[in-house]
């Protein structure tokens, strides 16, 4: 089971009420390569992966929920005090008439989250390569958001999240090395 801890993994601060950046950030909330997709992908794949790397999928999947909460916090802070006019101006008019100021699992273009993007093949190499690709895609999304964001405080937390994609990709690459090793041989560094 899981236990909630009443703190974020990393402090989230934003400089200004800025619903336009909130809209961009929704790509990492309910987008195909976002944090929700990542968490669900790894926690679903963990049942049918070799024991040797099951723990890694479990733990990275858990960390992704902490990242999802950071993204949600950013979106919340960037929109909580915005007026309907400001939301409209930022392209969030359609979001507002359907969802008010609540968060919704959708991408930056307003398309609802769908699990159809999350593959699980039950083939350990296919799944781990998908996981590596997912980390690289999420890393790119963070880069493109940083390129269109002019909020230095927000970019600080986005830089943290992007670096986590680098580390996760590194670990998934190691996971591939571990399960492709000849059986009965011990890893030497």
């Amino acid at each position: 089971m899981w236990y909630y801890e009443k703190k974020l993994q990393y402090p989230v601060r934003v400089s200004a009420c800025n619903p336009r950046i909130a809209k961009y950030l929704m790509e990492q909330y309910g987008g195909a390569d976002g944090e929700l997709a990542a968490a669900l992908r790894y926690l679903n794949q963990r049942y049918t992966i070799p024991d040797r790397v099951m723990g890694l999928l479990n733990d990275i999947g858990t960390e992704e929920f902490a990242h999802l909460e950071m993204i949600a916090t950013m979106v919340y802070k960037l929109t909580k005090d915005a007026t309907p006019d400001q939301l409209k101006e930022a392209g969030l008019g359609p979001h507002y008439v359907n969802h008010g100021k609540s968060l919704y699992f959708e991408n930056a273009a307003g398309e609802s989250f769908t699990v159809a993007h999350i593959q699980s093949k039950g083939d350990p190499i296919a799944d781990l390569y998908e996981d590596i690709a997912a980390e690289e895609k999420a890393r790119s999304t963070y880069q493109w958001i940083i390129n269109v964001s002019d909020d230095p405080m927000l970019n600080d937390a986005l830089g943290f999240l992007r670096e986590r994609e680098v580390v996760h990709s590194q670990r998934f690459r190691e996971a591939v090395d571990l399960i492709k090793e000849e059986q009965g041989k011990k890893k030497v560094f």
Partner: protein
Amino acid sequence: MAKENKLPESYYTDLQALQAVDFTLVELTLYLDTHPDDLEALKQFNSAAKKSAELRAAFEARYGPLREFGHSYSSYPWQWSKAPWPWQV
């Protein structure tokens, strides 16, 4: 009327100290998942876990419980469900 419930500045620095040691634990956990035989990393993990428990106990004594479902104690009245929540601070 909005109720003013400002946290002291120390809340943020104490929180960050805890986030820092807990982040080291996240990093060491993922590392040990792929390097289970690294004894030095394992020792570092256990000593960071001890440090985290100390910082967490001190933080909770000042600002209230951090962990759900009985992994933190509560004083009276029930403190867990009290604002602010992490996305509000």
